[in-house]
């Protein structure tokens, strides 16, 4: 079974500053994806960024980037130029990739980090 650990229950950052959210995971799988999802207050969860485990290059999406350290099983999210709209709960998630069909797509979430962007 996989586990995902987010050690920072809450964080805050000043608007326009940079913040890094931590995530570690434990798995014996070699083929998997890692995700960061954002859940704003009272709004739906949306995907922020995805990383394939077989790729060494860190994923980036505009102001969001990850630091993927496969050997250390670490997957942190960096938010640059923080904006008020970044205020949300952020979930790190793991997905094992299996090609047999049923059961292939289970997301295992961490407990989340509540990020507040301060004006």
């Amino acid at each position: 079974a996989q586990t995902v650990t987010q050690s920072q229950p809450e964080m805050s950052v000043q608007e326009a500053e940079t913040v890094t959210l931590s995530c570690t995971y434990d798995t014996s799988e070699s083929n998997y994806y890692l995700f960061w999802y954002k859940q704003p207050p009272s709004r739906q969860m949306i995907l922020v960024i995805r990383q394939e485990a077989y790729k060494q290059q860190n994923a980036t999406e505009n102001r969001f980037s990850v630091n993927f350290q496969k050997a250390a099983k670490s997957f942190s999210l960096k938010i640059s130029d923080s904006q008020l709209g970044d205020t949300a709960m952020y979930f790190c998630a793991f997905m094992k990739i299996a090609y047999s069909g049923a059961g292939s797509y289970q997301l295992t979430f961490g407990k989340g980090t509540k990020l507040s962007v301060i004006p």
Partner: protein
Amino acid sequence: DAMVIQNPRYQVTQFGKPVTLSCSQTLNHNVMYWYQQKSSQAPKLLFHYYDKDFNNEADTPDNFQSRRPNTSFCFLDIRSPGLGDAAMYLCATSTKPGQGARPYEQYFGPGTRLTVT
């Protein structure tokens, strides 16, 4: 815009009274999921449909059932809700290999917040 829709957004039911939550999608995705998210906790997968194939998580209580009459709709039935079932219920969808450009990514609906009185 293609999306995942959940109705109702808020549902109040009485202890022991059956309740059904619905999810519909216009994404034409093959896979649909139901998650339970209790306050300040991570979403927990209850079950998912891979096309018409139903996949139940081992620790999902028998009190929770699901139906998927067609590709677009999926229902979550709670046969006898208890106070511990009060939570946000999230529906999500995803493609499968060969269907779309970005498989495995899950698209979430806004959720239904269930209150049990």
